[in-house]
Every structure is written in structure tokens, then in C-alpha cells.
């Protein structure tokens, strides 16, 4: 147990974790701000304009409002479960963030700083495992509220997430076959060695992943667990104040985590575009973290863009789509990928 052990496994991760804990809530506030702005622009409106220039202080005003609200639990609720449900979602969302490789490592004051806090060799699997736990938060929150709309939202969320997890896992498996590793940074390295992003090898998988990702994060057009127009607010109807904001934070954290996973799997993570083209090597001075933020930012925008474009699916359409289309297509994709790998290996050695 020497000094590097302490710095590599305790101090630097701790600093990064604290940084994420400090920055991320603010970031989510501004994602919400961007969401409101973009939705407004799509509808030829202006969005928040009153608090600060161009409404830039709106997230802070919102946060203050949420924090000063009363923390209410319904009279017949299971209070213990009701109170821990949002915390579960928040913890899971933040844990997921730890697995994302956000940039190449660099040296700072003689210490190697790795921008992926946890880089286990089964990172993708762990991420999936952690994200699969978020069902609990929605189901328990909806159940504990002891109210009909939350319960309906909870049932929908559980069924939806379990269904789409299958398609998502099969889709990811095809990419993992190509990379030959379960490690997040290993997948990026594999893409660097292959010289191209996996989106060009796995276009079908990419599209499947995007759709399953939207379903997993309960965003429009698959936001049936929330479904404001029919279920009030779904599983968090009865929540208010900061517990409600925990649900929102968790949802946006899940969006960021899934976008990060998508970027890692299909778009080369924090690498610059076309990492093997010498012509573009003048872009190398830009740190990898920037590329990561740009790519993830695009997909956050994409989430909002989808929300502004499509109406909500009907529940049976959603389930039919998941089980009858996405799962067969993702399995076919997996088989074809495996076959192609075997053929390529045997032909080109």
C-alpha cells in the first residue's frame, strides 16, 4: 500500500466524484433550461426570458423554488418506501456517471488522472446492471404513493424497462463482439485500432440503441410512465419539492449516462472524428473531454428534439414495437454480426 495506490484509487477518484456531484445538478438545471428553450423554438416561442438575460438564471430560480417547497407525503403512503424511492434513482443515476470514460488520462502535478472514475473490465455490464436497478425507484415510488395514477405509471415503467432492456442488451452485445471486450475504455481503444467508429459497422445497432435508449430513459415518445396527459405525472405524481427534483435529476442523469454509453459504443467515445485520418490531426490539440461533451450534448439535444417532434406512443404499440420488432431485429443483428466476424476471421485470418 504505497502512495500511488492511495492517489490512484482514493484521492483522485474522490476529487472527480465530488466534482461530478457538485457540477452535475447545475448541469441538469441547464439541460432543463436548454430543453425548455429548444422546445419553445420548435414551437416558435421564446421560452424562459424573464429571470436574467435570456432567462439564463431560470434554473437557479427553479432550484430555489424546489428547495423551499414543503416535503409532502400522502396520508396513506408507505412513508419509508415513499421517501427512499427518489433517493434510489438519484444514487443510481450518479453511479452510472462514474462508469463513463470522459476523456483521455492526463498528468497533473505528477499524478495520472484518469477521466473515467471507474474503469473495470466489465464496465458495460456493470452500467447495465446499475441502470436496471432504476426500475425499483419508479416502481417503489409509484407503489408507495398509494394512489392510482402513480401505480399505473409504476406498472408501465416496469414493463417498459424490462422489455426494452432485452433489445438494448442484444444490441450492445453485437458491438461487444466487435470490440472483444466489456471494458468501456477497451471499446474506445478497439475503435481506435479498427480505425473507424462502430456506427459505420453497426448502423442498425446504432438506430436500435437510440430507440431503446429513449424507451429506457422514459422520454417522449416513450414516456408512458409519466404521460402527463393521461397519468398526471405518472410515478411521481405525489412527489413535491426536492424529492420531485431527485426524480428529475435521476432522469436527466440516466439520459446523460445512456448518451455517454451510446457515444462510447458507436461514436468512439472521447476520440476526435476519424481518429486515423492524418489530415485531421490538427484537431489533436482539442482535449478528448471536449469531444465527449460535444457528442453527449448532441444526443441530449436529440432527446429534446424527439420530444418536440413526436407524439406519445400508445401503450400496446410500445409493447408491440418492443417485442415484435426490436427484439427480433436486434437478435438478427447479433447473429449477422457474429457470422460476419467469423467469416472475416477465416477469410482474412
Amino acid at each position, binding site marked *: *500500500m504505497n502512495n500511488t495506490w492511495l492517489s490512484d484509487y482514493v484521492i483522485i477518484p474522490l476529487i472527480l466524484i465530488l466534482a461530478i456531484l457538485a457540477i452535475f445538478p447545475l448541469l441538469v438545471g441547464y439541460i432543463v433550461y436548454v430543453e425548455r428553450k429548444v422546445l419553445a423554438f420548435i414551437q416558435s416561442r421564446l421560452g424562459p426570458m424573464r429571470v436574467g438575460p435570456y432567462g439564463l438564471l431560470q434554473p437557479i430560480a427553479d432550484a430555489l423554488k424546489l428547495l423551499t417547497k414543503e416535503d409532502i407525503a400522502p396520508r396513506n403512503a*408507505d412513508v*419509508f*418506501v415513499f421517501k*427512499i424511492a427518489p433517493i434510489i434513482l438519484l444514487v443510481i443515476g450518479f453511479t452510472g456517471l462514474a462508469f463513463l470514460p470522459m476523456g483521455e488520462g492526463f498528468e497533473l502535478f505528477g499524478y495520472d488522472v484518469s477521466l473515467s472514475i471507474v474503469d*473495470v*473490465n*466489465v464496465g458495460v*455490464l*456493470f452500467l*447495465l*446492471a*446499475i441502470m*436496471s*436497478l432504476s*426500475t*425499483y425507484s419508479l*416502481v*417503489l415510488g409509484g*407503489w*408507495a404513493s398509494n394512489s392510482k395514477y402513480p*401505480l399505473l405509471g*409504476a*406498472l408501465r415503467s*416496469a414493463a417498459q424497462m*424490462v422489455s426494452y432492456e432485452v433489445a438494448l442488451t442484444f444490441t450492445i452485445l453485437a458491438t461487444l463482439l466487435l470490440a*472483444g*471486450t*466489456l471494458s468501456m475504455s477497451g471499446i474506445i481503444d478497439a475503435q481506435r485500432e479498427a480505425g473507424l467508429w462502430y456506427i459505420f459497422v453497426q448502423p442498425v445497432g446504432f438506430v436500435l440503441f437510440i430507440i431503446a435508449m429513449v424507451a429506457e430513459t422514459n422520454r417522449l415518445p416513450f414516456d408512458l410512465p409519466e404521460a402527463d396527459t393521461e397519468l398526471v405525472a405518472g410515478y411521481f405524481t405525489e412527489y413535491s419539492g426536492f424529492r420531485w427534483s431527485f426524480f428529475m435529476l435521476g432522469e436527466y442523469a440516466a439520459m446523460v449516462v445512456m448518451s455517454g454509453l451510446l457515444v462510447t459504443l458507436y461514436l468512439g467515445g472521447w476520440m476526435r472524428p476519424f481518429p486515423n485520418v492524418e489530415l485531421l490531426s490538427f484537431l489533436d490539440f482539442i482535449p478528448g473531454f471536449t469531444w465527449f461533451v460535444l457528442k453527449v450534448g448532441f444526443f441530449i439535444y436529440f432527446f429534446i428534439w424527439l420530444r418536440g417532434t413526436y407524439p406519445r406512443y400508445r401503450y400496446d404499440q410500445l409493447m408491440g414495437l418492443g417485442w415484435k420488432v426490436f427484439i427480433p431485429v436486434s437478435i438478427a443483428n447479433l447473429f449477422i454480426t457474429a457470422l460476419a466476424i467469423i467469416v472475416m476471421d477465416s477469410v482474412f485470418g
Partner: protein
Amino acid sequence: MSSAAFYLISAIILGGALAMITSRSLVRSVIWMVVSFVGVGALFLLLEAEFIAAVQILVYAGGIVVLFLFVVMLVNLDELQRVEYLHRQWLPAVLLICLLLAELGFMMWAGAGDTVVPLPDQDQLDAVLRSVRGGNVETIGMTLYTDYILPFEVVSVLLLVAMIGAIYLAKERV
């Protein structure tokens, strides 16, 4: 360090299990069960078996217990809470527990004098892990698909049979 972590995780697992069986509310029991399962996952992680740890959380905590939760949420809780706890089973239960504890105690007492096999140190572990490319995922994969291919396939068929049976039972009512 790692033994401290071991005791901590074990305390979480046992605490979770204890809370699970003593909790009167079924939903809370399920929550404690998840805590226990996640603890088991952490224990696997401590043994540097990341793959099994991830699968433990993914399959047990993330998959199976969700289904438990479904069942628990949809049954009538009020009726279940009125049921007597150890329904005429406390005597056999106590006897079995005493037997188990005696067995464990005997094992500890009998093995007290044995020389402890030292755990392989970090360098040895790393060497083993490096010898199989990709760490323990590939090791498990190779083992499952070569040495234990028959049991593996038998288990697969068993699961398939269970699935078909479940679908058949559900289909009857439609």
C-alpha cells in the same frame, strides 16, 4: 483493508437478510432483499470476479426481484399481514437453526489447527488475469463452453422448458 471491506459487506448482506425476514411489509422485504443481493455482488467484486458481480446485480437484483416486486404489489397485502408469522413451524425452525449453528461451530473448532492457505498476492493474481486475455469474462466463457458444455446446455433446456410451461399455463386462461 480487504478484510475490513469483507466484514462491512457481510454485515450489509446479513443485515439485509435479517431485515428481509423480519419486516412485516412485503414490499420492504423485497427492498431488503435487493440490499442483500447487491451486497453479494459487492462480495464477488471483492474477490475480483467482476463478471459474476455484474451478473449477480443484473440478473438477481435487476431482473428477478423486479418480478417479485410485481407479484407482491399485486397481491392483497392487508390479508397477508394478518397471517401469523411462524405458523406452527417455530419448533422445527429452531431445531434446524440449532443444527446449522452446531455444524458451523464444529467446522470452526475442527479446522482451528489447520494451516491457513495464503491468498495469492496481487502480483500472482495479476499474472493469472493477464494470462487469460480479457480477464475473467473470457475465463468463464471458455470454461462454460468447453469443460462444462453439457451442464450448461442442460440448464438452458431446463429454463426453456420452464418458459414454455409458463407460457402454456398463461395461455389457458386467454
